[in-house]
């Protein structure tokens, strides 16, 4: 399950920001490692909401620092 979410997220991050899929691993920070700024993050969140049918409120987005944080949140809420 988590592995599927991780690979799905990698595809989304690639589409939104052009980051190579293989660079999107659990421990990476969206902002510091993948260069995803606040607006790209909004796009990633929206695509994830669509794909997994979750609601990721703005207040929660700030807590999703790493790719792993996002995977965990999606797994727990979808």
């Amino acid at each position, binding site marked *: 399950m988590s592995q599927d979410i991780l690979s799905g997220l990698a595809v989304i991050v690639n589409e*939104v920001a052009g980051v190579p899929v293989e660079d999107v691993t659990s421990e990476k920070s969206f902002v510091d490692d993948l260069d995803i700024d606040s*607006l790209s993050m*909004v796009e990633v969140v929206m695509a994830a909401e669509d794909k997994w049918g979750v609601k990721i409120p703005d207040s929660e987005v700030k807590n999703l620092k790493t790719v792993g944080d996002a995977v965990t949140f999606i797994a727990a809420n979808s």
Partner: protein
Amino acid sequence: MTAAIRTQHGVEFARIMSIGVHRPERVVTNAEICTFIDSSDEWIQERSGITERRFAAKDESVVDMASSAAHKAIEAAGIAATDIGMVLVATVTHPYQTPSASTEVAARIGAVNAAAFDISAACAGFCFGVSLANDMVRSGSSTYVLVIGVEKLTDWIDPRDRGTAFLFADGAGAVVIGPSEVPAIGPTIWGADGGQKDAINMSQSLIEYRDNGGPIFPVITMQGQQVFRWAVGEMAKAAQRALDAAGVDAGDLDAFIPHQANNRITDAMVRALKLPAHVPVARDIVTSGNTSAASVPLAMERMLRTGEAKSGGTALLIGFGAGLVFASQVVTLP
């Protein structure tokens, strides 16, 4: 017995016949903006695509800019100002409650036979106007309609607000819409969501300011991320519906001219629409900033002038903004 009422008939189709714009002279760089807000040229370019914008002079009014653009559009259409039956001015920055900017513009340009009113639909105002004008020509209530998008946003923003000061600017664009032999304006897809009225609004009303004062005069405030989320999520869908309604494929477009809100919103719409790389996309925001109701005609004029798009080409337009409101249609370029 109820009297028989005769009605009027117009023509089958309408088209955009011509375009004219007014770009204020004063160029304001990101470096100058950064003397008012804590920001950087790099941040502004990354987040919005803007490198510079134009600010109107202190004594250069909404009516001045609108009249200048209108004058050029009428001349390019090859008609007389007295042929105009309606003047529509889309603006949210005319500083008088009444009368409307449009009546003053009509008088200035000599459109003495025209009726006139303003449209309050923020950054979607121009596309609302195109839709109304199309309906007026086709129903026969006017033969030629002048549609103007104009804003002097710098009068209504706080130059020290980091969320808006680098984004908004001034300008005007006008088109003449008249009869056509062939279909040249597709169905308009439009809507409003007042449930999100706080996403972009005024900090307070003028009455509140009069009665209570306040730290600053009423200015436009914006929840940037909320607007971004809505625009990216919903506007590509609206644009797709406009394409479907017109029976045009994205690949058949000669230009995509979205409201110049923010290049990042444009990028996301291009991705969501799966717009093929050969379709030119308007990027007037880079040197004009976000000019609200004026942005679509300003962007259209630049594409035609630089040869990025050609007269007779097919363009997808979409405007969206405070309300929240939006309107989108496919048109043949003048």
